């Protein structure tokens, strides 16, 4: 079973849990005027979809990082 990558995305402003459905059910935590989204991401296409959602909502993206590395087999394909 391949382990997926996990990403941590922080946006400015506190958002209610109901916004999680736009981000495929990522966990949401509100910390001091920001919202931290954290969860597994299927692949780069999905990640870019999330970024687009953030752009569509006019949210300010503060940070985005991969916090859990996926299992990678040999090869250079960018999947996540």
């Amino acid at each position: 079973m391949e382990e997926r990558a996990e990403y941590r995305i922080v946006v400015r402003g506190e958002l209610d849990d109901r916004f999680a459905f736009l981000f495929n059910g990522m966990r949401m935590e509100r910390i001091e005027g920001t919202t931290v989204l954290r969860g597994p991401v299927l692949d780069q296409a999905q990640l870019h979809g999330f970024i687009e959602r953030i752009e569509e909502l006019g949210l300010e993206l503060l940070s985005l990082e991969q916090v859990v590395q996926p299992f990678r087999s040999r090869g250079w394909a960018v999947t996540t």
Partner: protein
Amino acid sequence: MSPREGLASLSTMGVALRAGGTLEQPARPPSLLKTKLRPPAGREQTVPRDRLLGRLRPPAGTKLTAVAAPAGYGKTTLLGEWCELGGTEEPIAWLTIDEGDNDPVVLWSYVIAALRRAYPGLEATVSPSDVGAAHTLDAVLPDLINALTAFGTAALVLDDFHRLSSGPGRDSLAWFIDRVSSSFQLVISTRNEPGLPLGALRAHGQLLELRAAQLAFTPAEADALLNDRLRLNLEPSDVKALVDRTEGWPAGIYLAALSLQASDDRHEFVSKFSGENRHVVDFLVDEVLNAHDPETQTLMLRSSVLGRMCGSLCDAVLEQRGSADRLLELSRTNLFLVPLDDRREWFRFHQLFAQLLRVELEQREPGLAPVLHRRALLWHRAHGTAEEAVEHALASEPASRGGRGRRTSVLSERELVVLRMLRGPLSERDIGRELSLSHNTIHSHTRSIYRKLGASSRAEAVERARAAGLV
């Protein structure tokens, strides 16, 4: 072929003329095409932003004006106003970009149509669909550039420029910008940094930019909106509090205004609003919704899954009657509902607002969205508007499917043609030969198709397309 008929078979001409066979192409409803070529109608409630309009007259030598800011900053509204001001004496051409314009034949056919609409005397004679994508740079653009030089002063707005992804369409535009004469003013509005060589333009002083910092509302502009237009009778300190809290973000200020309209104690509302850590959108959508009667709320929430909408489509999706009147009424009081034609038959929600409504819909009626998509799909199929049927087909599978992440962006007509051919035995190179497109173009379409369908192989793409009723 009259210009009108020519426009109607825009995307098919390049393919049909070369391939020589019959290709079933979904007919584009005429109103869709018209709306690409005109700015949104001016609305009474919008505030004329003279300080910004003045800046849209660029200094000599400016090759490109870029209005670059996130969603909800009023880019389209501003440029629409600018267009309207030009009127008949100094007309300005308009084109709203969508994903279909990534194909250079489609893009330049529309650009030429937009320019001809504003400048009937323009003598651009090379038709993109006649020569095909491969000859954009050596036949279509040189002819157009010469025609524009001969014509004199002209201006073109490309709205929603961010919908052009990397590829031949955007590249051809970069080529054009580099070579067109300085009497031509190109203005683009975009949500992100456009993939054009802005660095070089900036360095040479050939770029004019209006960004979020300039587009944000000043307290004076907020006052004009809130007190002059909407007659909310707010104290200056309250206006300032709203501007501070939203940092001048126009969509945020307008959402606050909509909430305030229904509010009994406006000062109290502003205090509460200012004190919140919650993001503006999170706080306000509830307020805006609850200000309406239940039927209108249902209409707003359920139609949020639609792209463009008319009364009949909403009736089908809601399984109710009376949507046409409600849409008309709502559009009078809510700037986020944008009329798409003069007859006020078609509308769409501002994308930001639609997104917020969708979140709220999922909250109030979890799992209903796919059902609504299915109803919309059936309506579109019955009315022959295939492109939108495709979008709803993709979205009508329940989210719990557990498959790969999938963006519900619609496949362009050209992508649909390629997808159909991917079912067969031809290699990408041979498909290219069949369609008179380069191998690179086919490959780029194929990658885009995989991405949109969440597929990682040709077989998977075809399978998913079949499951979604696309082929």
